[in-house]
């Protein structure tokens, strides 16, 4: 189980590569993928406010003429600031209360019944025996909740104000001392409260649904176990001697392998990511086994990612491995020989990791999901073998820990023992770069990574020449907590592929319940953002149009990056007009169009369109960020707590300006205009 897009740190998320982005902005270049939340927000809101000011100015100009526009425009802005700063909470609450009453009286509780029905029916169709049952169930509850809550708030927010206008009930409200700001804020608040209550109910129902559906036990009887005879040389009274071996009874589509030891302890095999605790008791000379509820189906992994580099067949450092022709360039591949994938971890501390864990048994827990590419079929039954070594980046000391068989699409759990026996070697990392000679020529030079690995090489060679027992943290982790894990392919002419997120160390797990709460918090934030957009559109559009516009924003929010790409004319085949011309003239996307009037015309039209798309793209909130969040929860990764703050900041950063714009529009709208 991997997260392709890992969750950035709070600081990275906030600032990103903003210096570069500012320079790119100044020189009208394509802004890099990570301009940081602050800069993205400034660009979005700056665009939005600019657009609002222009629209407001044009409205005033239409009403008062170009010469008389400045006084009313200035007055409107002054009044706006006054009204925004004098919001009465009592009146706002009255409006919010009305929205809540309206929702209840319009039988919104039907959604509760609907959700319960969906859960009941899901119980029949979802496969509890699936390999990824937890992901399946979590995806289902999170999606169904998201869709229902978003549809609910979409309707409420888009239709609430337009219905007031249509029924003219707004007349009796705005003729009371209610400011437009209170009207807008009250609506948002009321709808948000209704949505929140529904979401809360759905979250609680979902949690109980998922945990109760996934929770299961097995039966284990004496007849399921086969006695193991005492082997020669083994002491029969050894408490750790294996006495029985067997399998539990079938439940939820699977059985667990069971090892029973002489002292009565039972080892249970991991199936579909979970295991069970089994206890035994003697009843009337018979042993009764009690298989307890599952453990580990729902997880909140805390991954520790490293930086990934590759080692080329020549033994030199490179950024990428071999491209095996896969269009999806997420993974790079390595073959046998000197090639390696090097994960470099920093800031490691032994206390971060669970010291004993049912799945990992006293070692540094590593999870990996590797790709496999076969250049020949070979023995298809046999999996490709790979090796895992650890290396101290300071001393260059390296030792192979294990070899293992890889399986595509399957997450492998291994533990690097805290102490292990191995043969040491000193491996120096080298890279190649070009530099200019004094006479101006470019030449290739080699360098070492890092430099201090070579300094003590001779000493290390002498020290580490014999097989011995290593202490993982003492021998391979530097003072700064740095360590490297090397993956190498053992089978010749076969390849294994990996990306940065494919291998991670697993720190002590977070709380599953808390992670669940964090997952639904993301949905909540999305709902609030949607409400703000819905109310904004409803201040000047009719209900259905406001709803479609809000849906449009949501869709655009998920493809913000693509919109900006269109805005920067980076899409192959040009903009919509050029693409149309290409379709009509049957030219493919990579051929340059011949110079002609029609080409100039369509490209000019595309330029105007792209400018519009760029502006629009900047104004749209980056909603795709929320999907990272969902992905993490359903795949059983713990969401860092600071990510709650990220989303709160992002939601407020958009909702507040949206509220201001909505207020400005409503306060300048003639309520009684038919």
């Amino acid at each position, binding site marked *: 189980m991997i997260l392709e897009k890992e969750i950035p740190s709070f600081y990275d998320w906030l600032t990103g590569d903003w210096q570069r982005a500012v320079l790119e902005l100044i020189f009208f270049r394509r802004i890099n993928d990570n301009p940081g939340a602050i800069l993205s927000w400034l660009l979005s809101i700056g665009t939005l406010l600019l657009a609002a000011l222009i629209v407001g100015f044009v409205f005033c100009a*239409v*009403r008062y003429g170009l010469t008389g526009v400045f006084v009313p425009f200035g007055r409107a802005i002054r*009044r706006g600031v006054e*009204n925004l700063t004098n919001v*009465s909470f*009592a*009146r706002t*609450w*009255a409006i919010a*209360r*009305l929205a809540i*009453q*309206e929702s209840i*009286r*319009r039988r919104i509780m039907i959604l509760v019944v609907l959700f319960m029905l969906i859960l009941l029916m899901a119980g029949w169709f979802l496969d509890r025996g699936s390999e990824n049952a937890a992901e399946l169930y979590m995806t289902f509850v999170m999606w169904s909740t998201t869709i229902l809550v978003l549809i609910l708030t979409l309707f409420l927010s888009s239709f609430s104000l337009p219905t007031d206008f249509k*029924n*003219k*009930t*707004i*007349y*009796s*409200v*705005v*003729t*009371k*001392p*209610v*400011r437009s700001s209170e009207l807008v804020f009250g609506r948002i608040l009321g709808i948000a409260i209704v949505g929140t209550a529904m979401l809360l109910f759905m979250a609680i129902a979902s949690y109980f649904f998922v945990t109760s559906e996934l929770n299961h036990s097995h039966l284990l009887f004496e007849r399921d176990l086969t006695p193991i005879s005492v082997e020669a040389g083994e002491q029969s009274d050894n408490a750790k001697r294996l006495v029985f071996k067997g399998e539990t009874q079938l439940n939820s589509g699977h059985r667990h392998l069971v090892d029973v030891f002489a002292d009565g302890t039972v080892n249970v095999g991991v199936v579909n990511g979970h295991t069970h605790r089994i206890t035994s008791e003697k009843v009337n000379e018979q042993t009764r086994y009690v298989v307890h509820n599952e453990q580990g189906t729902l997880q909140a992994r805390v991954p520790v990612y490293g930086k990934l580099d590759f080692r080329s067949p020549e033994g030199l450092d490179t950024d990428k491995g071999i491209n095996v022709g896969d269009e999806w360039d997420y993974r790079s591949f390595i073959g046998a020989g000197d090639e390696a994938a090097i994960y470099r971890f920093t800031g490691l501390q032994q206390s971060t990791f669970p010291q004993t864990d049912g799945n990992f048994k006293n070692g540094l827990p590593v999870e990996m999901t590797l790709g496999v590419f076969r250049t020949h079929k070979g023995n298809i039954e046999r999996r490709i073998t790979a090796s895992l070594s650890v290396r101290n980046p300071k001393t260059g000391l390296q030792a192979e820990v294990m070899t293992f068989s890889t399986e595509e699409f399957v997450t492998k759990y291994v533990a690097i023992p805290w102490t292990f026996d191995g043969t040491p070697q000193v491996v120096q990392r080298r890279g190649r770069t070009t530099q200019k000679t004094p006479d101006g020529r470019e030449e290739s030079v080699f360098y070492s990574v890092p430099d201090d690995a070579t300094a003590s090489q001779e000493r290390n060679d002498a020290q580490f020449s014999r097989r011995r027992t290593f202490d993982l943290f003492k021998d391979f982790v530097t003072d700064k907590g740095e360590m490297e894990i090397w993956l190498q392919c053992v089978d010749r002419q076969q390849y294994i592929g990996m990306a940065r997120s494919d291998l991670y160390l697993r720190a002590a797990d977070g709380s599953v319940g808390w992670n669940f709460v964090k997952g639904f918090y993301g949905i909540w934030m999305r709902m609030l953002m949607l409400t703000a957009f819905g109310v904004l559109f409803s201040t000047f559009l009719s209900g259905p149009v406001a709803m479609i516009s809000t849906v449009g924003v949501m869709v655009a929010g998920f493809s913000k990056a693509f919109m900006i790409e269109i805005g920067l004319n980076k899409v192959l085949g040009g903009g919509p007009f050029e693409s149309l011309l290409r379709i009509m003239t049957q030219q493919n996307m990579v051929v340059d169009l011949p110079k002609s009037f029609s080409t100039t015309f369509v490209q000019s039209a595309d330029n105007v369109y792209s400018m519009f798309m760029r502006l629009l793209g900047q104004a749209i909130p980056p909603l795709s960020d929320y999907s990272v969040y969902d992905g993490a929860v359903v795949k059983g990764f713990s969401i860092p707590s600071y990510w709650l703050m990220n989303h709160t900041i992002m939601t407020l950063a958009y909702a507040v300006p949206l509220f201001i714009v909505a207020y400005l529009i409503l306060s300048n709208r*003639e*309520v*009684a*205009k038919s």
Partner: protein
Amino acid sequence: MSELTAGNVPEIVVETRNLTKIYRDFWGRQKVRALKALDLEIRRGEVFGLLGPNGSGKTTTIKLLLGLLFPTSGDIFVLGKPATDVGKNEKIGYLPEESYLYRFLNAEETLDFYGRLFNMSGPVRRQRIAQLISMVGLESARKRQLREYSKGMSRRIGLAQALINDPDLVLLDEPTSGLDPIGTRNMKDLILDLKKRGKTVIMSSHLLADVQDVCDRIGILYQGELKELGRVEDLLKVSNETEIRASNLSETAKNKIIDIIKEDNAELVFSGHPTTTLEELFLRIIEESEARPGRRVRGGNKI
């Protein structure tokens, strides 16, 4: 604006200067000129009636006063403040043409909602709600949702919400429409009661008899122009005619009516100019306006 005020209410409660409203379509083209250069002053404590046929600009005027519409040109001051100032609404009560209320609320909830919009405290709100529900006679229907109300009941709860804040200026758009004769009588009594309490009332109505009964002054609008403005009794007075009203008059005396009234020792009850009905005046002004568009009709005189 006049600076003379009683309490916080200015002497001139409503003032419009050259008030014009033009409705335009999406492209800014003129659709209707709903109001043309209206100059109006309504004083504190007056009951002012706005009359006019459909589409004459009465409702537009009220909506402009309330800030529901923005003027195309001209100024409006209500209670000394521009009409677009939300602060003026603290002392205004408005009964719309139809009861535009939330039909999913019951009477108590409706008044509670509007009371909250005035930042009224809980106890005050509850007391006011009880008082108003009793005043409009909806005690038995206080817990019923408004969707179940008849038109007359809706008007009554509409009136109650308009009075929730004990307003100084009450704007009533067609206040008696949809009311039965008793309801109409009650409404008129209420208007007179408001007047007695020093409140200013502006009402528009098609029911001329109602206006005649309660209004101190009226303005007659036709096609957006103010055709007539003045005190009701002045407007209805026919100045070039004399009316003598007598009682206990014998048949003989009838033949010599003017010469012998005194000789016959009959009691002279009334001698003066006769008055027309408001309906007659209204219809005459409309006829006159259609015959000579743009001309202001002189009040009370037959032309």
